[in-house]
């Protein structure tokens, strides 16, 4: 590492080598040992700015950067269901109930009272098994 590189790193990352990128720290410490006066001068100037930043009111990121930070955050999972909801989902009861309800409505409108129960069961079974998908007359 030469003085120019050391100076650039001090300008970019400040007056504390331990806050520099890890992959350049060893070389930076070696340069400090080899050229203590030059290194001390560069670090002192950078440290002055570090102290000014520490004493300043916090800077806030712009809206675009703020959004990228938020987008980069780990996504949370959907809220945990209650045990009963998990049981319903596992059993497929929700879909079955919806299909049965739709079939019951159809049966109530279109079918005779005597056969409504049997037909409703058949239609419900068809919906539950996926045999009925986009039937326009189901609505």
């Amino acid at each position, binding site marked *: 590492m030469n003085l120019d590189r050391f100076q*650039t790193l001090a*300008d*970019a*990352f400040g007056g504390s080598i331990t806050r520099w*990128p*890890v992959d350049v720290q060893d070389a930076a410490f070696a340069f400090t040992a080899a050229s203590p006066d030059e290194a001390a001068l560069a670090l002192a100037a950078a440290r002055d*700015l570090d102290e000014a*930043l520490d004493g300043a009111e916090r800077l806030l990121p712009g809206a675009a950067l703020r959004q990228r930070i938020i987008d980069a955050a780990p996504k949370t999972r959907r809220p945990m269901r209650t045990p009963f909801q998990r049981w319903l989902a596992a059993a497929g009861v929700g879909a079955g109930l919806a299909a049965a309800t739709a079939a019951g409505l159809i049966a109530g409108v279109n079918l005779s009272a005597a056969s409504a129960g049997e037909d409703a069961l058949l239609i419900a079974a068809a919906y539950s098994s996926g045999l009925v998908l986009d039937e326009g007359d189901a609505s």
Partner: protein
Amino acid sequence: MTLCHYQELTNIEAAALMGVTVDALESLLARGRRALRAALADLRE
């Protein structure tokens, strides 16, 4: 500067968040800090 100085992110993390290369981040930081240092020096005079 916010990400690296205040949030103490690594150069790799900050570069990724800003969508730039690590080299570009280093250049931006160096230029920004030099400009700020010059501006502060002007204020102190």
